[in-house]
């Protein structure tokens, strides 16, 4: 079986990620597909570029899995995040979670995307018609003033 956590420079295939969490114990699989949107606060994106620190990103995906198992021991997780240049509507990330029951599959999947945005070293560069910028202060992100994310310190 291929690794459940991957950074890929090739276009993502949703079903490849989904298949990794298929289980006879599962009664539900939720799949989150993050895609490249054209408009952010009225500004038009032409394309995006994602960069990762792959070795550490994989370790952080594994940490998210450990955290998920503390909350929901029976859930299974697979994540693939794309890097490189992406066009509008391209898939940036696929998260698949299976679990015996539906509610946990939804909750654990949302937990995973929230934690990705907090601790996984991946960066997005927006290309607009009039310039570019590395995005680092999205409102949906937790700003870290210094040091490590809180969850790390609690370990």
């Amino acid at each position: 079986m291929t690794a459940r956590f991957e950074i890929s420079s090739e276009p993502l295939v949703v079903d490849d990620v989904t298949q990794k969490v298929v289980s006879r114990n599962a009664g539900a699989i939720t799949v989150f597909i993050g895609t490249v949107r054209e408009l952010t606060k009225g500004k038009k994106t032409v394309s995006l570029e994602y960069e990762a620190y792959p070795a550490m990103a994989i370790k952080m995906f594994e940490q998210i899995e450990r955290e998920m198992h503390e909350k929901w021991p029976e859930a299974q997780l697979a994540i693939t995040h794309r890097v490189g240049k992406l066009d509008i509507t391209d898939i940036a990330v696929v998260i698949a979670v299976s679990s015996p029951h539906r509610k946990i599959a939804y909750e654990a999947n949302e937990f995973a995307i929230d934690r990705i945005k907090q601790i996984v070293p991946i960066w997005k560069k927006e290309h607009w018609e009039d310039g570019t910028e590395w995005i680092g202060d999205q409102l949906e992100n937790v700003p870290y003033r210094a040091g490590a994310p809180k969850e790390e310190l609690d370990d």
Partner: protein
Amino acid sequence: MINVLLFAHLRETVGEEKLVIEAEKMSVSDVKAWLEARYQLELSTVMSAVNEEFAMDHTIVQSGDVIAFIPPISGG
């Protein structure tokens, strides 16, 4: 020697994705100061990781270690 990895705007500002510092032992703060003295960088709000684990400013980096600077992330 200490290996330094740079990403996103830090990589572009420095013009390199990897630097090597000839030193046996430094704190993360020391490495930040070393970089700020040589490049137009502001690292006070930038996270760091030593050998792929999040680190603090007082974490010690030894020869052979890899220190990465992690600007605010924007994956997902």
